[in-house]
């Protein structure tokens, strides 16, 4: 039971590592951006897991229902912000990739590096 | 006078430098300004002389960047003397360089005069330094301001030698001198020059020897072997610069700093009783002998003079580490005496180059008939180097030997005698050939004397070299204060 209770954290770790691995070893820049997204959403999962309380409900007060248990609103707020940051980063990164493709004609990291070296 | 006027001594040449920069377009104005600056500076410096010889020690703190590290100036016998020599010789050197630069119509003369003024300002700063920090600051400034002078010609070979010059001086000062200063500061909590030294009671045993080593080799300008490489390298510079390096500012600043550090940081009697510090006199002796021997084998006049300088500098260090009052006086006076002698020699060399474009020794045969005045001056300088009366060299050697006998330091005595013989061996032949030998085949001999300005400078310095033999009382009085104030 306790172990199942930690399962979310393990998934968080695994997702984080998948993202990191792709970030380091993938050459395609778009892939890197997707990997970045996975990497970040792992952290979202981590925070949201923290906010959960047993027998809790979403932190919205329903009129007339007394002494409810609410899950923790704070991590949810943080993650709302973090998601926005994530999409912004993705958009900007994608824009850079598009420009890179226009300048270099490729979106493979190693090829771009090679071109930089010779220029 | 009011101690707060001390910084004027530095400020004056700086202002001069700026004025020169602005007047760069009109050579006459420019050179008048440098000459004026030189004279006023000398007057200013000498005006302090009476006070200091009455035993006053004016002191002024400019700013205190870090607690315990202040930018402060003070005048004491050693510094006074150094300041006097430098500022006075600068006048002559200026006159001379005007003649030389015009005679060889060099380029970038404005830069030359600016850096010249900066160098003097730095030298003044070293002379007036009241603590190691100030000393270090101006020491570096001197190095940097002389670099453009050494690299004046600007061709590849010159640049290379200038690189050596800068590399050695900057490297040693940052790599050795700075740690030594920090060590002193961390150990004693102060860097102020104090009579009787400050390290006593804080550092002891082998550490003292190590610290001394850091200082001596850190001050590369004193050219104790093996950090002497920069001096021959700097021979690529135009002659006035060589004169500046050898007589006026640079090397003098080196030995001056070492003497000052030994007297005011270590303290003479503390060092005298510290066995681990004895290695220094052997290093000095080694430098003296080796330098003289190398000088024997030189065929280029200026290079020979350079090695002779290296030897003479170690005289001062030798004298200092004899650690006896008389020897300290000798050390101080030798700084002056060597200055007069060596500047004469370099002026002579420069005169020969300007008039006859001769640089090699073998070309000098019989030149005495063509350039009598120059060669006469040269002879006087050489005699002073050897230490023959009636020249300045004799006075200082006399005191050094006296100190050596006081200390019954026969090693020192032997070294000095030996080196004297060697000096004689490489100077006398030149004089002989110059006056008596017939010109070497294939050397054109139809040239006259050097320009007037050069001759004037020569005359002055050579006369000084003689005069100093008879009339050296004020300086002696000044420096004997050093001795009296020294705890014997």
């Amino acid at each position: 039971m306790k172990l199942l209770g930690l399962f979310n954290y393990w998934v968080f770790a695994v997702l984080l590592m998948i993202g990191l691995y792709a970030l380091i070893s993938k050459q395609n820049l778009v892939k890197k951006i997707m990997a970045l997204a996975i990497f970040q959403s792992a952290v979202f999962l981590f925070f949201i897991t923290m906010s959960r309380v047993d027998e809790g409900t979403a932190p919205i007060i329903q009129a007339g229902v007394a002494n409810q248990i609410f899950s923790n609103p704070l991590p949810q707020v943080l993650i709302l912000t973090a998601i926005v940051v994530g999409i912004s980063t993705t958009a900007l990164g994608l824009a850079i990739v598009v420009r890179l493709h226009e300048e270099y004609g490729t979106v493979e990291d190693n090829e771009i590096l090679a071109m930089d070296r010779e220029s | 006078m009011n101690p707060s006027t001390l910084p004027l001594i530095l400020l004056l040449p700086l202002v001069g430098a700026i004025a020169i920069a602005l007047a760069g377009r009109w050579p006459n104005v420019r050179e008048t300004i440098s000459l004026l600056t030189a004279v006023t500076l000398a007057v200013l410096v000498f005006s302090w002389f009476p006070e200091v010889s009455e035993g006053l020690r004016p002191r002024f703190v400019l700013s205190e960047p870090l607690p315990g590290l202040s930018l402060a100036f003070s005048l004491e016998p050693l510094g006074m003397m150094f300041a006097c020599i430098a500022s006075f010789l600068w006048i002559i050197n200026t006159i001379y360089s005007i003649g030389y630069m015009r005679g060889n119509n060099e380029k970038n003369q404005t830069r030359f005069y600016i850096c010249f003024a900066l160098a003097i300002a730095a030298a003044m700063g070293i002379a007036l330094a009241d603590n190691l920090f100030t000393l270090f600051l101006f020491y570096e400034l001197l190095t940097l301001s002389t670099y453009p002078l050494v690299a004046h010609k600007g061709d590849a070979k010159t640049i290379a030698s200038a690189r050596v010059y800068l590399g050695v001086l900057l490297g040693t000062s940052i790599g050795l001198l700075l740690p030594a200063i920090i060590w002193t500061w961390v150990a004693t909590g102060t860097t102020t020059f104090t009579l009787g030294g400050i390290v006593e009671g804080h550092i002891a045993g082998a550490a003292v020897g190590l610290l001394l080593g850091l200082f001596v080799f850190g001050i590369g300008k004193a050219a104790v072997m093996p950090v002497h490489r920069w001096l021959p390298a700097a021979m690529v510079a135009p002659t006035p610069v060589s004169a500046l390096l050898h007589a006026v500012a640079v090397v003098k600043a080196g030995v001056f700093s070492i003497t000052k550090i030994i007297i005011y940081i270590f303290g003479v009697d503390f060092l005298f009783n510290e066995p681990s510090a004895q290695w220094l006199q052997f290093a000095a002796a080694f430098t003296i002998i080796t330098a003289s021997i190398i000088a024997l084998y030189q065929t280029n006049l200026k290079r020979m003079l350079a090695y002779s300088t290296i030897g003479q500098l170690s005289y001062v260090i030798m004298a200092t580490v004899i650690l006896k009052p008389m020897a300290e006086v000798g050390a101080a006076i030798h700084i002056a005496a060597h200055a007069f002698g060596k500047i004469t020699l370099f002026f002579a060399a420069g005169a020969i180059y300007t008039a006859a474009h001769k640089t090699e020794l073998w070309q000098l045969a019989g030149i005495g008939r063509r350039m009598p005045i120059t060669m006469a001056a040269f002879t006087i300088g050489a005699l002073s180097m050897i230490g023959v009366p009636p020249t300045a060299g004799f006075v200082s050697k006399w005191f050094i030997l006296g100190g050596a006998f006081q200390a019954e330091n026969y090693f020192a005595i032997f070294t000095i005698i030996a080196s004297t013989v060697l000096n004689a061996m490489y100077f006398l032949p030149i004089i002989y050939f110059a006056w008596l030998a017939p010109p070497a085949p294939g050397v054109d001999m139809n040239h006259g004397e050097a320009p007037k300005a050069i001759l004037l400078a020569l005359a002055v310095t050579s006369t000084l070299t003689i005069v100093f033999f008879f009339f050296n009382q004020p300086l002696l009085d000044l420096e004997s204060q050093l001795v009296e104030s020294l705890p014997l």
Partner: protein
Amino acid sequence: MTMLLIGVFLLSLLVITAIAIVRSEDLFSAVMLSGIFSLLMALNFFLLDAADVALTEAAVGAGVATVLLLAGLRLIPPKEAPGRPLRALSVTVIAATALLMIYASFGQPTLGDPLAPTQQHIAPWYIEKTPELIDIPNIVTAVLSSFRGYDTLGEVFVVLTAGIGVMFLLGGGRGKPFSRLDSQAEQGLSGHLIPKVMARLLIPFILLFALFIQFHGEYSPGGGFQAGAIFVAGIILYSLVRGEGLALSVIPPRALLLMSAGGALLFGSVGVAGMLMGGNFLEYSVLAENPVIGQHIGIIVIELGVGLTVTGVLLSIFHAFAARD
């Protein structure tokens, strides 16, 4: 227990999808998979009682991000070059991180533990005080827009920055911006009857829903950001069906820019108003005699600001990608 098991099931799906994304060489399918990934993530969030986050993740991750990636893929080769073998460096880094995290996890409170420090310290205060201090049902909105309104201001500016960046990089530079508007090719699916009709049917509802999310955010999940995202989804659908040019004539770029900047300014000016009326920056309580009313005013206005900025920025980003050739 069942919830827990469902959670475990969904999480495992999540991991599988992630691996699939990394492995697939065709970027189009990778994009689709990442859309699925976001949906699964949203489901998980919902299971974990984070309704607002789930809504946002669905709208942004599955919606906007996918559309942006597709728009980007229009401009770059959709195939990934054959990958190289795993590098020692990456493997070591991964392994190290992995061990760290697993190691750490055993010191952590388990899922849903009501005694965890997070449930003890600050959250209870929010839950307890929100009714009396701010008096809106949705505690998340309360915290987001009032207690930590400063962070939200920052969030708005992050979005604005992204917009500025994309417009700076793609809007200018090579060729003039939105250069394909005149070309016939960009008529979208407008020739096709069924999508056209359906879109006409749906778009009003989508926009309506967006407005609902916008102004009902204090009572139910939602708020400026989600609303903005959905609104944008509506417009994007429009421009897919009726063509880029028409969509742009409906809301011209300049207007989008005005919306983006204006929203941010609106948000900020509420804060400044608080200052001028004698409170601290972003202190809504001073906006009206009754602090609670003041809070309501403040929250509504800043949510509006957020909505405006998000709509403006996301739309201009989409156009910047879609209109580039």
